[in-house]
């Protein structure tokens, strides 16, 4: 494997991680969607590059799916939903930008510490890709925790899935069945999410899931 191949793969995976950080502090909903779309596009480039250097043409299918579905279709649809719901203003965050970024840095350190010692014999590229991917996954989780808005939680989840695909494409020779199923399940997941957003909108006139807390079964229990 040439140095060029290695560097470019690193650059793209690193780019995804940077975009994950941008997602963390982004406080406007439309900007969040745009950053997510950008991350999906970087993902598709990264997967395509992996297809090239691993000589695995089936990965190109995954790259195209990432580009079309997550880079174009889903962000467009979400933009439309956001406009229809009339919520393109601020996103409330549980934590401020500073603490969130610090927590994010901690998670990146954690994923490096976790993956590096055990990944000795899977090859340097796969190992570092895996560390990047785990960082993206953990940052996606963090985003889901810090957001209260249903749409941005969806974005957090999909960013997490981006990390999963990055990990799967980095694993050399992982059969197509799996990647395809991931792409497929994202579609299903999005479908379900979409249905929920609509129901939540229909029922509460808000997509702030803080409003859902009022209906916790627990509280009703104590009546």
């Amino acid at each position, binding site marked *: 494997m040439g140095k060029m191949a290695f560097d470019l793969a690193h650059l793209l995976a690193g780019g995804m991680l940077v975009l994950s950080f941008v997602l963390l502090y982004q406080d406007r909903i439309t900007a969040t969607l745009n950053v997510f779309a950008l991350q999906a596009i970087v993902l598709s480039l990264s997967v395509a590059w992996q297809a090239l250097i691993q000589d695995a043409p089936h990965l190109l299918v995954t790259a195209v799916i990432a580009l079309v579905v997550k880079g174009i279709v889903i962000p467009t649809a979400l933009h439309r939903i956001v406009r229809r719901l009339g919520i393109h203003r601020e996103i409330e965050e549980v934590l401020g930008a500073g603490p969130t970024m610090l927590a994010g840095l901690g998670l990146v350190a954690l994923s490096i510490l976790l993956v590096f010692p055990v990944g000795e014999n899977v090859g340097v590229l796969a190992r570092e890709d895996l560390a990047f991917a785990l960082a993206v996954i953990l940052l996606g989780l963090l985003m889901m925790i810090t957001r209260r808005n249903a749409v941005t939680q969806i974005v957090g*989840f999909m960013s*997490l899935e981006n990390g999963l695909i990055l990990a799967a494409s980095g*694993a*050399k020779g992982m*059969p197509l069945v799996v990647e395809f*199923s991931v792409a497929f399940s994202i579609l299903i997941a999005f479908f*379900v999410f979409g249905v929920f957003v609509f129901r939540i909108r229909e029922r509460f006139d808000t997509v702030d899931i803080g409003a859902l807390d009022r209906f916790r*079964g627990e509280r009703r229990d104590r009546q």
Partner: protein
Amino acid sequence: MTLPFDVAPLHAILLIPALAAVLLAVLPSYRIGVAINVLAAGPTFAVSLLLLVGERERGDIFIIDDFNIYLIVLTTFIGFTTAIFSASYIGHELETGRLTPTFLRFYHALYQAMLCAMNVALTANNIGLLWVGVEVATLSTVMMVGIYRTPEAVEAAWKYFILGSVGIALAFFGTILIYLAAQGALGEGAPALAWDVMRQNASKFDPNQLSLAFVFLLVGYGTKVGLAPFHAWLPDAHSEGPTPISAVLSGLLLNVALYALLRFKMIMAANPKTLDVGLIMMALGLISLVFAAFMLYRRRDIKRLFAYSSIEHMGIMTFAFGIGGPLANFAGLLHMTMHSLTKSAIFFAVGHVAQVKDTQRLADIKGLSVTHPTLAVGLALGVVAIAGLPPFGVFTSEFMLVSSSFPRQPWLAVILVFGLIVAFGALVWRLQEMLFGEPVGPAGRVKASYIPMFVHLAIVLAAGIWLPEPVVRWFQAVAAQLG
């Protein structure tokens, strides 16, 4: 290598529910839908019995071995009885207008999709396919949990969905890691994801990679199993969805997730240098058991009560498999079966009780023995069985577990017994409140199908009194495999 298409019964248990799901989705009439739902679940169960006598086969995609056959039979059986229960339950929901025919169409299609996905997960040899099966089964139950579209139901479904997705994402990452661990020894491509090949070669894998993978798989699938502290979705999902779904969630889906976890534990067991997963599973199991046992006292909602009881019992099973060894594994397998049958029978009774009383609040359910004696008998038998009293099968498995864990982990065994007693107290207390006392609320007649409930209870009773020799030998063989 055999192609999966050679295995006809295997083919059928996946195809029948899949075709039924498509058919149910396009058929507008809910009456026909109800009939098809039962008619599809029945043959699926019948075909699964053929697997019992058929040959054990393997391919890179599907596998049939002793371990999954008994779970497939159990799953299709409860899928069938729940479909019968669902038919009478749904009739009442239509009358009261809680569900409309359009939603019923979705409901039935999703029910079959869920059965199909669970069968895929159970028969999968490819661990990626196993993951797909668990995920699709989860997604279809999410939709069904939210089907009443009340604020509580939407919240429950949302919570279930978020926690379930995170769990499933972590499980997928674990799957990738385990593939990477296998790839060094097995090369690239499909065989490196085949469970049986992995297990045979596990000793050649890097133990650290395996351990890391298992941690992700444990948290991922453990969320689905409902182990504390990843259980937050479970009580909501059980209490807000239609009761047939509560029955299959507790009876089947939790089992399938635990099954997935056990498959990976078997790979770990084949490599002695890995992390001691037994210890982690014992700890998680005991935490779930004790936590849920105390939570039982604070419940005000009948379905939440039994949901916490499910967490408790999944904890018991996880503890049993964590201890390991032939006797504890045997107890765990038996407990899995007995709990599925008993808990779904309880939910059958609870569904009708909640319908006839028009509430799920425990305070409004009293004096059932006077107003609805048959339901009261069913509920009483179910609760007595699940609380672990003889002569029911749950007693047998719990007794075996306690007696096998005392010599090996005396202190943990004390905690186990303590948790069992606490839970027992809560269940008996709640049961006598529901059965006796001045009847409250409506006392109307109930249009119920009692057959599924009593069939389940009869099996549990029979298993408690006498386990047939072939079944014992079977469980022993599987327990030995589990290591």
